[in-house]
């Protein structure tokens, strides 16, 4: 190893490769989150949308998190809340990332060309520039206001907010890759332009949008909870964290802290879990990839 490399490695401290155990540990928080979501019906002891006992019971053995103002079991509602948040977050993260990559690639490839495609690319780019300026929650309020609150509406509203980042990230990356000299080399080697766009540009432009995916996941949970909190989220009895917190606040004032605090803790933990895994992933991914697939050559773990 040369001196420059040693210095760089030492300064960034990124060369430390975690072992397989650590790599798997990094995934644990998110796995727990998903497990709770998937097995919510098995975990929750009561029906989350029905009064099951007297109102405002403090946490006890039968009701771990107590009951709320209408006698619904807070624990069951909180667990089902995980299911709703995770379902939303997965759907939105997938749509926003895949859609954002497609649109970003299209804009990046077309915007500098003449003709109708270039025009469309530039138009999409401008629209995206403006939508970025709209505060997430304001956009959510307006869309819910016009379309009414439902799963579909909220998915559209949140996706519209969060798709802008992958679009921008991918577009910038495509533009960067297009300026790389290996595309000139491809031109000199006689590769057709379309082929080199698909073979060289697209695969090399996916990184930033993929790394942004966990962020979308976390942000989706936050926006959904925020909209629910101000009362423009999913309709009433649905066990949604934000709505649970806001309806628990009045009880909180009276010292009955449990209906508001438990869902708040769950919001906090779920977002932190995603952030934790997202941060650990770039370090642990090579280790996992190394273990599970020797076939695909991985750039990061072969850096010597």
């Amino acid at each position, binding site marked *: 190893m040369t001196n420059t490399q040693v210095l760089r490695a030492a300064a960034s401290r990124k060369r430390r490769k975690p072992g397989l155990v650590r790599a798997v540990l990094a995934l644990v928080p998110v796995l727990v989150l998903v497990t709770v979501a998937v097995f919510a019906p098995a975990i929750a002891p009561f029906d989350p949308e029905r009064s099951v006992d007297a109102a405002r019971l403090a946490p006890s053995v039968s009701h771990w998190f107590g009951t709320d103002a209408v006698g619904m079991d807070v624990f069951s509602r909180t667990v089902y809340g995980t299911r709703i948040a995770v379902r939303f977050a997965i759907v939105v993260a997938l749509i926003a990332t895949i859609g954002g990559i497609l649109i970003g690639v299209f804009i990046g490839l077309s915007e500098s060309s003449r003709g109708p495609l270039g025009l469309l690319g530039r138009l999409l780019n401008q629209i995206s520039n403006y939508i970025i300026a709209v505060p997430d929650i304001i956009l959510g309020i307006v869309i819910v206001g016009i379309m009414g609150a439902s799963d579909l509406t909220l998915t559209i509203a949140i996706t519209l907010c969060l798709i802008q980042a992958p679009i921008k990230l991918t577009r910038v990356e495509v533009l960067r890759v297009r300026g790389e000299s290996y595309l000139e*080399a491809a031109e000199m*080697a006689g590769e057709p332009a379309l082929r080199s766009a698909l073979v060289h540009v697209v695969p090399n432009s996916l990184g930033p949008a993929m790394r942004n995916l966990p962020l979308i996941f976390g942000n989706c949970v936050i926006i959904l909870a925020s909209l629910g909190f101000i009362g423009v989220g999913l309709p009433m009895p649905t066990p949604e964290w934000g709505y649970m917190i806001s309806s628990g606040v009045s009880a909180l004032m009276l010292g009955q802290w449990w209906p508001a605090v438990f869902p708040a803790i769950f919001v906090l933990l779920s977002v932190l879990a995603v952030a934790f895994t997202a941060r650990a992933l770039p370090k642990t991914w090579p280790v996992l990839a190394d273990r599970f697939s020797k076939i695909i050559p991985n750039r990061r773990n072969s850096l010597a």
Partner: protein
Amino acid sequence: MAESFELVLSGVRKDYGRGSTALTAVQPLDLRVTEESELGIIGESGSGKSTLSRMIVGLEHPTSGEIVFDGRSVKEWLSTRRSRLEFRQQVQYVAQDTTSFDPRKTLGEAVAVPLRFLRGITDRDEIRDRLDAIAEELALDPAMYERLPHQVSGGQRQRFALARSLVVEPRLLLCDEVVSALDVSVQGTVLNLIKGFVQRHRMGLMFVAHGLPAVTFISRELLVMKRGEVVESGPVRDLVESPQHPYTRELMNAYDLDDGRKELS
């Protein structure tokens, strides 16, 4: 052995920008290059030497004037798919390697691409043979074809970039600052390889650099550029021994060290 060819530049000029802020990168220039040529182009950064070589291969387009290769203008060569490939096969360009390889493709895959598109070779065995042949000629280890670009040293990568261009046996090779980023000890190796290859295959060579000694070694004729203008040209020996233009003189003096150096051998 490559057949003869003729590359003629007449009144080629390149401007960047328009109106009052326009910058002339290359002043009107005439030049003739044949398979006999081993032409070195030297100048400081911003002298237009790179722009010139990029215009010849059609990566940039002259503002005015014409570049004609074997009776057809470069623009014409590039206008249809078939002639474009034919032109690319005959004229190859190697740039200073920093990122001239796709980080996701092995070096072997990269070197095979021109064979497939410019030579129309699709047979795997034949591609393999040709890769091995070019590796041998450029003193490369064929095992390295399996590696990714960042897994070999800068000097090796530069040689693979040469292999990618030379594997199609072009008639004219343009090298743009191919050794500038390399350590002195590696420079010599790469220069020897280029010179040897060009002479064995009787190809034309245009070698662009800002370091004078590399250019004087590799070329027989020299073009000195400054601010887009050719200030002097002629056989290397004449320019080194008796430079006429003050800029050329300054350049030669900067490298000439006869007084201070006692060389062995």
